[in-house]
C-alpha cells in the first residue's frame, strides 16, 4: 500500500480527486474554487484555439467531486448572468 506503484494514479479509471499538495490542509475551499476556475479557463482557452476540450475534463471531475452542488449551481448562474467575480 505504501510502495511507489500504489501511489501512482491508476490508468483510465477515475476514482476520486487525488491529494493536491497545493492545498495540504483542512481548508479545501480554495481547492474546489481553483479547479472550478481552471476548468472554465481551460474550456475558454481551448475553444478559442479550436482544440479539443477533453483535457479539461480532469478539472471538471475534481470540482464536481469536491464542491458542494449548491456552490456550483450559484457560480454557474453568476457566469450566465455575467456577475461571476472570478477571473475566467
Amino acid at each position, binding site marked *: 500500500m505504501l510502495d511507489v506503484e500504489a501511489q501512482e494514479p491508476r490508468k483510465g479509471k477515475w476514482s476520486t480527486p487525488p491529494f493536491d499538495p497545493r492545498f495540504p490542509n*483542512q481548508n*479545501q475551499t480554495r481547492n474546489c474554487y481553483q479547479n472550478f476556475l481552471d476548468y472554465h479557463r481551460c474550456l475558454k482557452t481551448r475553444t478559442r484555439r479550436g482544440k479539443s476540450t477533453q483535457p479539461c475534463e480532469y478539472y471538471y471531475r475534481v470540482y464536481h467531486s*469536491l464542491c*458542494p452542488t449548491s456552490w456550483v449551481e450559484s457560480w454557474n448562474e453568476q457566469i450566465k448572468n455575467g456577475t461571476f467575480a472570478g477571473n475566467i
Partner: protein
Amino acid sequence: MAHPVQLGLQDATSPIMEELIAFHDHALMIVCLISFLVLYVLSSVLMTKLTNTNITDAQEMETIWTILPAIILILIALPSLRILYLTDEINNPSFTIKSIGHQWYWTYEYTDYGGLIFNSYMLPPLFLNPGDLRLLEVDNRVVLPIEAPVRMMITSQDVLHSWTIPTLGLKTDAVPGRLNQTTFTAMRPGVYYGQCSEICGANHSFMPIVAELIPLKIFEMGPVFTL
C-alpha cells in the same frame, strides 16, 4: 452508539480512534496518580501529630518537584503530538463524500461517479420502529465503505454545525462558505451514530448523523434504493 450511563469513550472503529483511546488512558492514568498523590500528602499533613516550629529549607525536594512535572508534561505532550500528526497524514482517499449542514438536517452528496444527493432527517419519535434509538435514527443513512480511506468534505448552507461520529474519532465543524476536509478509514462494518456538535438553533439536538458502514465489494455495486 453510546449506551446508558456510559462513562468512557465508545469502542474504536478506526485506527486513529484506537490511538486516541490509548492516549486518553495514558493521560487519565497520569492525572489519577497526581491526584491521589496530592490527596495522600494533604491528608497525611492534616492528620499528623508531629509538629515542627522551625523554618527549614528543602532544596532537593524543591528541585525534584519542579523538574518532575516538566517531565510529566513532556510525557503527555509527545503522544499527543504524535496523534495530531497521524491525523494529518497524506493518504490518497478512495472516495469523496460531501456533507452539508442545514437547519436542521444534513445533505449528503456522492458525486465521484454520478449525482446521488439526499437529505437525512431525524426520525420523529412517533415514526420510530420498535427497537430504534430515540433522537438518533434518521430516514436516510450515509452509506460508506470499510477498509478504504474516505474523504469527507463538510460545509454548511446556513449557520455553524459540526459533523461528528465519536466511534470513528471524527468531529469537524461545518462552516458556511468554507469547505473542511476530514479523512478516515473504518475497520468494522456496522451502524454508527453521532449528533450535531455545534449549537445551531432550536433543533440542534435533533439532527443526528448515522453512518452505515458496509463491505467495500457491496459498496462498489452501487446505490440500492429502497422504497
